């Protein structure tokens, strides 16, 4: 037998769990303000997360999907995006959405069960949160294809979880993006769990990054709890996409420290002893340690940041809670551009204007 093709999957880590530099620091990482911005975004995401869970537990928010422990993936990714790139997110990318200008109020509204939460005042072309698993991957290919057809130096960024890589939708999308060399960056937010099914039972493949190989596109793995690595690798993939170099798949290896959602109880399928080591790997501590050592981040800086994030989250939650629900006829408002006659009749019946 002759070997006719060989492949390898690289992995990138720049900050190790102790906050020590173990790789080549990219240029942005020498700028204290840049790192603080990344840190602040992760802290804000975690503050939002804590508030969302508290509101859900007290019956004031719907079922919520936490991003606890995996904040570096969406934050590092969004930091590499330009405003006119388009985010096509799954349901744990709050950090990316906030970075891109989706407001805390809008996120609360969405998770509170109000479509107005997806009517972002900020990134108008970004897709809304996708609840079905992996079905949004082809949309990102369509968005990227649109950019390519218009010869725009932009990219579509699609994030999905480890479970989504088992779906045909994702594999189809990777393949199609490869065929068209569409300017798309796909990110597997591999948090180890698809509800109760661990990564090992999701696929026999050694990495998820290698799902790219079958599609003929580059795939690589990173330490997804290292926000510097995430931003750096995403920078490179996005630059290549925008300049016509085609799509990339990035597998970011992180860990879901929380339940799958507030409707899940992870203690049914995993032991605390399995989870606790991952608290030593999580992204906030890692960057904070580095910031403290390399850039003189102080306890006072930390406390001020935590207070500011909590205050912003509390204020947004108050605004959300004070927002009245839409009236019953609102469900008809955007079903079609123009309401057909038979729906006019249903609307009239519902709102008491008929019969």
């Amino acid at each position, binding site marked *: 037998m002759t070997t006719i093709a060989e492949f390898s999957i690289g992995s990138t880590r720049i900050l190790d769990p102790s906050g020590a530099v173990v790789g080549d620091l990219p240029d942005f990482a020498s700028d204290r303000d840049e790192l603080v911005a990344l840190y602040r975004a992760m802290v804000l995401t975690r503050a939002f997360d804590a508030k969302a869970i508290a509101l859900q537990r007290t019956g004031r928010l719907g079922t919520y999907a936490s991003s606890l422990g995996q904040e570096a993936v969406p934050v590092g990714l969004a930091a590499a995006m330009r405003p006119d790139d388009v985010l096509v997110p799954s349901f744990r990318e709050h950090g990316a959405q906030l970075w891109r200008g989706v407001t805390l109020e809008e996120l609360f509204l969405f998770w509170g069960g109000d479509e107005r939460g997806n*009517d972002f005042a900020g990134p108008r072309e970004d897709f*809304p949160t996708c609840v079905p698993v992996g*079905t949004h991957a082809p949309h990102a290919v369509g968005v990227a294809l649109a950019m390519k057809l218009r010869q725009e130096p932009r990219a579509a960024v699609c994030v999905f979880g480890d479970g989504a890589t088992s779906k045909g939708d994702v594999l189809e*999308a990777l393949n199609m993006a490869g065929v068209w060399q569409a300017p798309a960056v796909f990110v597997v937010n591999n948090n180890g769990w698809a509800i109760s099914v661990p990564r090992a039972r999701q696929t026999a493949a050694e990495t998820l990054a290698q799902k790219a190989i079958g599609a003929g596109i580059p795939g690589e793995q990173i330490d997804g709890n290292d926000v510097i690595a995430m931003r750096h690798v995403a920078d490179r993939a996005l630059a290549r996409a925008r300049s016509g170099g085609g799509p990339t798949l990035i597998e970011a290896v992180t860990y879901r420290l929380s339940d799958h959602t507030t409707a899940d109880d992870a203690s049914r399928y995993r032991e605390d002893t399995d989870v606790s080591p991952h608290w030593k790997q999580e992204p906030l501590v890692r960057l904070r340690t580095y910031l403290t050592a390399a850039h003189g981040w102080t306890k006072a800086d930390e406390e001020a940041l935590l207070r500011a994030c909590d205050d912003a989250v509390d204020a947004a939650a108050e605004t959300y809670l004070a927002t009245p629900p839409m009236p019953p006829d609102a469900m008809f*408002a955007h*079903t*079609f551009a123009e309401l*057909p*006659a038979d729906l006019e009749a249903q609307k009239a019946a519902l709102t008491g204007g008929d019969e």
Partner: protein
Amino acid sequence: MSGTGAEISLVGAVNLALKRAMADDPAVLVLGEDVGIDGGVFRATEGLWQLYGETRVLDTPLAEVSIAGVAIGLAAQGFRPVAEIQFTGFAYPCVDQMINHASRLRTRTQGRLTCPMVLRSPGGGGIRAIEHHSESPEAIFAHMPGLRVVMPSSPARAYGLLLSAIRDPDPVVFIEPTRLYRAAREAVADTGEGLPLDTCFVLREGRDLTLVSWGAMLKETLEAADLLSDQGIAAEVIDVATLKPLDEKTILDSVARTGRVVVVQEAPITCGYGAEIAARVATGALTSLLAPIQRVAGCDTVMPYPRTEEHYMPSAARIVAAANRVMAYT
């Protein structure tokens, strides 16, 4: 609309409408399997690739989910994609994309993102095709809020309805009756005029009963109307054309005059679109009814293979028999 142009087939009219829509609007794209140099397995996209090139006529990998899903992404970015699925039996994987994304993108985002796409697919039996090539899934799509579902039954209506479907700001599922693709020719003028997507067409007026159908079954329904006419029974024939949203008024007005109605569909009877029409008539025209509503439909069976499909397909004789049953009530 018709009368002054060249005589063309229904699939020719689809092709003409695609050419016209692409000429009128550079945002219109065609994508699907074999739609490029091959012109589509039924030639619906013939010549488009030569006219508009591979940036507007895109041969896709063989992946139905992504054909629909990519169209959604393109539509959200301001293109007007017309996606072809080669047969409706292969459109079922697209159901997820159409119901979970295409149909609700506008609602989910309160109008921030919209999905002006068309999913085209030839449907229905009677063409002696192999398995999965003869399905009638219109009720499945019509059940989805936020979608329009259109089935033309003549070249002129195919041309006008497809133009309107492409120009519509929301997603449209456009099912083309394969059996009628080349069954008849009709003069169609390439005027660029669309037909309304919220209107039934009264193909024939009559005082005694109302026959309601759509797509390929209009052929047998019109034949049945001729046979009934020979018996001295004047049947009104309505082509529903746009199943969603339904122009209920035209049907109810007709039943109010005739008092009798037979609904004809090729799809399996249970939960088929005929049940929707029967329910609307029962609600909106009960006091006009002189006889129970009759449905002539396919069976709740798997679509048979070609050697026996004729027994499944509603025939003009079955429609006449149903008409005679409703006429028997005095």
